[in-house]
């Protein structure tokens, strides 16, 4: 019995030591300025998110070399939410209350962002979210530096309609929220563009799906009514490997049935032999092959730091823009206070790595150009189309229930404002 008590005491002590003690809340500006990095370093999302953690560390080091910020050194606080969604909320709370970070850069999946949102809003933190997502959200405490659907999906579909003359669409996706919402928006958009419902084929597969033969032959069979078929792929991660292998095996060339992917970047292609995929497309706001001096410098710095075989990708650019905007906003505000920085963030401009200027809009989304690239046999993308900057739209205009909503944190101070009833539906987000 004595031993039991000791063990329990030990457990408790371990628990206390483990989780640290709640420090006093920081009221005024103090050095160093802490930057929280909330990316999974283990678990299923580690492969994507670890890269972003390394990007952030690189950007922070670069900033420190330039002399830091407000005369302070920047200090990174890295935590590992381990691809576990509840753990994201817990770690966010820890970053904000235990480590007292001034800003958080993090998250990849939407579900992890939804998990973190209530905590960030409750504790009035500041989060930069760098990944393309399905939209339908705008939080006072979050800046979305990735693409909203109208900055990736819609232009890609326009490209299909206008440049490739596609008349029949196969929307293939992994079964989770981003493909579901994006496809729902696209379906409506296509119908508005005069595509009949029968000409839109939708299929969802589980994460990591590998048996693609039936689906690919279904897609090929779509061409039987003489309309040009195009595939809009929101297939996620590993499943793409099997999908593209099956496409190649079926001899489907990009000229017959073009595939545009929203989740396939340079990282994903490095797991594939791309010689059979030449000509298939991807839509992003950034490709490594972008030919600008800024990008050249960024890629060179990345390769020097991480090794020659590493590639850069779209979310990395989002962090690059987000971090630099935050630095400029802090300098403009003269403090890291969340409310002051948030206010200074709106209207911030910073050059994209692909040319042009990104601008932070009052709805906390970016104006960025949309790029469409063709897969090349070296695993890189050849940029064949680049638009002017497109304003990110938090609430899509293509679904009736969200068409009436707008977000404006500058004048209306509301992330979900109903323009019909002229009321703010809610200040906090719907989680």
């Amino acid at each position: 019995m004595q031993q039991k008590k000791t063990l329990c005491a030990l457990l408790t002590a371990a628990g206390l030591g483990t989780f640290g003690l709640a420090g006093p809340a920081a009221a005024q500006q103090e050095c160093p300025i802490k930057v929280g990095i909330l990316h999974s370093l283990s678990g299923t999302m580690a492969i994507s998110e670890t890269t972003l953690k390394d990007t952030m560390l690189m950007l922070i080091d670069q900033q420190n070399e330039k002399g830091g910020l407000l005369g302070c050194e920047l200090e990174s606080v890295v935590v590992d939410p381990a691809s576990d969604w509840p753990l994201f909320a817990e770690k966010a709370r820890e970053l904000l209350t235990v480590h007292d970070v001034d800003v958080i850069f993090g998250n990849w999946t939407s579900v992890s962002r939804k998990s973190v949102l209530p905590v960030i809003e409750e504790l009035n933190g500041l989060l930069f979210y760098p990944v393309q997502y399905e939209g339908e959200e705008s939080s006072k405490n979050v800046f979305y530096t990735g693409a909203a659907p109208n900055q990736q999906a819609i232009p890609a579909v326009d490209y299909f309609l206008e440049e490739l003359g596609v008349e029949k669409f196969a929307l293939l996706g992994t079964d989770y929220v981003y493909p579901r919402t994006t496809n729902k928006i696209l379906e409506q958009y296509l119908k508005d563009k005069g595509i009949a419902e029968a000409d839109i084929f939708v299929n969802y597969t589980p994460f990591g799906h590998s048996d693609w033969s039936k689906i690919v032959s279904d897609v090929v069979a779509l061409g039987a009514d003489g309309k040009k078929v195009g595939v809009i792929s929101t297939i996620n991660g590993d499943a793409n490997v099997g999908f593209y292998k099956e496409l190649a095996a079926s001899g489907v060339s990009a000229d017959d049935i073009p595939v545009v992917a929203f989740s396939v970047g340079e990282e994903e292609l490095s797991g594939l032999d791309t010689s059979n995929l030449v000509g298939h497309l991807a839509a992003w706001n950034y490709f490594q092959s972008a030919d600008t001096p800024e990008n050249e410098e960024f890629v060179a710095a990345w390769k020097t730091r991480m090794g020659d075989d590493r590639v850069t990708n779209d979310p990395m650019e989002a962090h690059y823009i987000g971090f630099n905007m935050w630095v400029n906003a802090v300098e403009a505000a003269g403090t890291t206070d969340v409310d002051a920085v948030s206010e200074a963030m709106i209207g911030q401009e910073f050059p994209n790595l692909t040319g042009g200027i990104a601008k932070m809009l009052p709805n906390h989304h970016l104006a960025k150009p949309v790029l469409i690239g063709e897969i090349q046999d070296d695993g890189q993308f050849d940029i064949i189309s680049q638009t002017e900057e497109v304003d990110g739209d938090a609430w899509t205009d293509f679904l009736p229930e969200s068409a009436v909503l707008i977000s404006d944190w500058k004048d209306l101070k509301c992330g979900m404002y109903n323009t019909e009833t002229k009321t703010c539906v809610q200040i906090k987000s719907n989680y």
Partner: protein
Amino acid sequence: MRTRSVIYQPHVIVVLSLLVVFTVAIVSFSEAAGGFLSTSLVKTLGMTLCLCLVAIAMDLVWGYTGILSLGHFAFFGLGGYMIGMWLMYARTEQIVIEAAAGAPLPPTPQEIQDAIGTQIFGVVGGSDIPAIWMFAGSLPIQLLLVVLVPGVLALIFGWLAFRSRVTGVYLSILTQALTLALSLYLFQNENGLRGNNGLSGLQIIPGAEDVPQSRISVYFFVASAVALGLGYVLSAWLVSGKFGSIIRGIRDDEARVRFLGYSVEHYKLFVFTLTAVIAGVAGALYYPQAGIINPAEMAPIASIYLAVWVAIGGRGRLYGAVIGAAFVSLLSTWFTGGRAPDINLGFYTIHWVDWWQVLLGLSFVVITVYAPKGIAGIFDVLSRPAKTSARPVKTAEKARAS
């Protein structure tokens, strides 16, 4: 009479008093009471208590009855979903009604429903409230469902399985299939529980938005502790009497118990269903603290981890399950949280984030093979070094029961 005797069992006394001391300590040192324990720590500890409760359920069904269920974490998740539906619905309803107050026309019930649907399901591209959310507005009904849904599912599944005498490894695989089917089902967006996004923002309690999370975390911690205490006493009461002897008999030799005239199937079904209910209750307390539930929580692997906790803690002892769940889950959090110092071997740096799983897997193998009694076995060695009998407590109880 038996109830009293249960209370006086040494392990019950020790566990309960430790629980009380622990709870009082945490509450009085918590942030809400001006102490130094951060809210996230209180939440983690509260969640750990819930895990201990579901581990007790697992121990009842596996350690005592010998049914290696690889599906009890699914019941845990179902409990979480049931309470989560009310939390989301009630919170959203409040927001919608407040927003509608500013509109020129008073809202019709249909408009309120539509707005709630858009708010909850907009994120997965829907707007209609599915039929399974029928009772989501009512707390009592959802609380009832926390118990009923896992219970009825376990009852049906158990009835089918035990009736056709599926046992042993087959049953384990079948429960795993059930778990997989359930999580795949929930993963589908059109099934009305928001697919992969799950239910989120559960830490916000409708009607208590102004209460700071530091207070809420303490409330839930206390609730979890009470639930764990009750669950422990209930389980101890069950396994100490004749019932306990019979289920242990089923574990050790099912055929013999059947020949003695006991309806083995009914006993197994009762334990299976009861433990599913306990798991559901534990889940309903866990997820409001975690803040989010999604189908990944119910993946087959989670249920296997549950078995791992119980095995490491020590099967066939209720306190073993508690120790295992608390020990392993807290240790996991510590190692994967990036807090454990990396070990630099000169030629290679061991990052615990990467190697913890390997260590966990291997230590699990070692414990199964060489120390089947788990951590709790240490107590046997320490407290009764003279006895060599494998399960002393049990033998004594058996003697008393017969």
